């Protein structure tokens, strides 16, 4: 967390400030996507950028996710530093060839001669009552692909620091923002800072159980830890911040210390990020564990629309609290 004097910014403001600072610092940085200019995106994350940087650098595109993502790859190879905006993470399906077969492989296939310094910003997260095609958390798909890096900030502070790092990285980075978090406020220093990739942060220290949580689930984990505290259980909350590169050491050390671990991630619980992290902990901390590592993720269903249906598909503070309490042998 910041030690510098800080103001309160929303998550959206932190993202915008990172972009504005990087665009001022480096003329090659440009943004393209749908409704990114005057509209500033449907979430208003980019409001004001076109006014400062002009339509040369903040480009409204047609509704052609594959096309403009592919152009991001080519532009990144040839001297620009594009930040491609994909409005909803669900639309990543349309960009898959460009990300998986092109962006991720150009450097390797060319024997290290071409580079793709591109960022693709998109969203994840349910509970916005947006139904099955506007609510998914598909970050596991991209974390699975060598050649891509995947960042998943959980606070305004992390969003700003990680996005600045992403823009300066020489590789394609997919940057996931929880759309339910855009209005969340948190301290962000006035001074410049960046956050390195592959460095987890302990968001709350504890002794009895480790809760590894990503993005949208970090606040849930912190809420559960608060409840656990009242029940006499001291929970440690660890946020990997990037799923690739992954800070395995910090995760394993925390689990060794507490001897129990739950992994909470809003992607699907099956074949997902929670499974991968659980496996890293099981391999690295096996002899220190007092219980099997537990995964918690979205229910294995397309996200439903109706609020009482949607609400049970995503891990909640209460669910994490109960799972953690049971693992600690309490009822």
């Amino acid at each position, binding site marked *: 967390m910041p030690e510098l004097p800080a103001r309160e910014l929303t998550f959206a403001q932190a993202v915008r400030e990172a972009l504005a600072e990087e665009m001022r610092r480096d003329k090659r940085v440009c943004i393209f996507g749908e409704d990114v200019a005057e509209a500033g995106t449907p979430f208003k994350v980019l409001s004001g950028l076109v006014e400062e940087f002009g339509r040369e650098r903040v480009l409204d595109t047609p509704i052609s996710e594959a*096309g403009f993502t592919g152009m991001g790859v080519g532009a990144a190879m040839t001297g620009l530093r594009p930040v491609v905006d994909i409005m909803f993470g669900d639309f990543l399906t349309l960009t898959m060839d460009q990300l998986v077969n092109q962006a991720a492989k150009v450097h390797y296939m060319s024997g290290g001669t071409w580079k793709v310094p591109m960022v693709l910003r998109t969203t994840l997260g349910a509970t916005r009552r947006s139904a099955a095609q506007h609510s998914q958390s598909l970050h596991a798909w991209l974390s699975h692909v060598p050649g891509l890096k995947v960042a998943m900030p959980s606070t305004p502070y992390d969003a700003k620091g990680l996005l600045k790092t992403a823009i300066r990285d020489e590789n394609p980075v997919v940057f996931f923002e929880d759309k339910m978090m855009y209005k969340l406020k948190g301290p962000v220093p006035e001074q410049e800072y960046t956050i390195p990739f592959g460095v987890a942060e302990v968001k709350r220290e504890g002794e009895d159980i480790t809760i590894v949580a990503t993005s949208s689930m970090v606040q849930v984990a912190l809420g559960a830890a608060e409840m656990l505290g009242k029940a006499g259980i001291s929970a440690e909350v660890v946020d990997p911040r990037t799923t690739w590169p992954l800070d395995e050491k910090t995760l394993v050390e925390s689990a060794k210390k507490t001897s129990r671990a739950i992994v909470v991630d809003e992607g699907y619980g099956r074949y997902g990020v929670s499974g991968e992290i659980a496996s890293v902990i099981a391999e690295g901390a096996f002899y220190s564990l007092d219980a099997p590592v537990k995964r918690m993720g979205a229910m294995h269903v397309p996200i439903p629309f109706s609020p009482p249906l949607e609400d049970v598909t995503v891990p909640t503070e209460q669910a994490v609290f109960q799972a953690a309490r049971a693992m600690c042998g309490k009822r």
Partner: protein
Amino acid sequence: MTIATDQSKVIEGVKADHWTRIYRRMVMIREFEDQVNELYMRALMPGLAHLYVGEEAVAVGICEALRQTDYITSTHRGHGHCLAKGASPDRMFAELLGKEAGYCRGKGGSMHIADPATGNLGANAIVGGSAGIATGAALSSKRLDTGQVTVCFFGEGALGQGVLYEVMNLAALWKLPVIYVCENNLYNEYTHYSETTAGDMLARGAAFGVHAEGVDGQDVRAVYATAQRLVERARKGEGPAFLVCDTYRYHGHHVGDINREYYRSKQEEQEWKTKRDPIKNFAGWMIQQRVADEMALEEIRKNVRVEMKAAVEFAIAAPYPKPEEADENVYA
């Protein structure tokens, strides 16, 4: 400059040694590909390769109109594009054999030759896969005001990919210096294009307001003259173009595609080879115009053959990468 595609005239301002260079480049591609076929037959090459034999006039005619700093993107049938843009045969053979000295240090192989020094953004094994990259490169050139032009090569099979139309639309909207060069060799793998391609090809580009035209892809002078015009337009900021080149591949879809009669006749192959061979026809024209005589052309062919043999030997002798290199270059 006046341009004539009439067999009786020379493009004004083009000197004899330039025509000889064009001839040499085409012969080089053919000879390179013959060697690739040999390597396959002798089981010296891992995997397969898609030969460019028969289509040489397209790559050479287009790339002759480009500067070294201009960009190209290429395809699974890409050896011709890479050589025409200036790649050296020894490092290409080395890549095809998976050797450390190859353009991609053995990590790419036949379908992924890339070379920043000659503006080659890379060959792509996803049909239509480089349309976005090429258009993005053109966006960079425009934004950074470098005056570079990008050529995106693809086969007519890529006309089935939606992403091509997404980026053509964008290139037209933003007036990007990119030329989409469609090599219509009649077959999407083993299926005639008439079974896969509705309507008029050129109309597809024209619908976006992209300048569209067709050219005889077996006539290197016509391709070159057209390319010069389109490249100049693009460089002046007049926007993208779509060029369809009628051409033919002499070999199978890849080196292992030997029995082809279920999709095309021997007679059809024979007709293209005898009547429309780009190298023979160009040689005939050069001799008729007294740009060169048969002896000079034979000399070129002989020299190229010697050069290709040496390049193949270099590649065969070159060491493989060490297994430890498998996880290098994943990230920059």
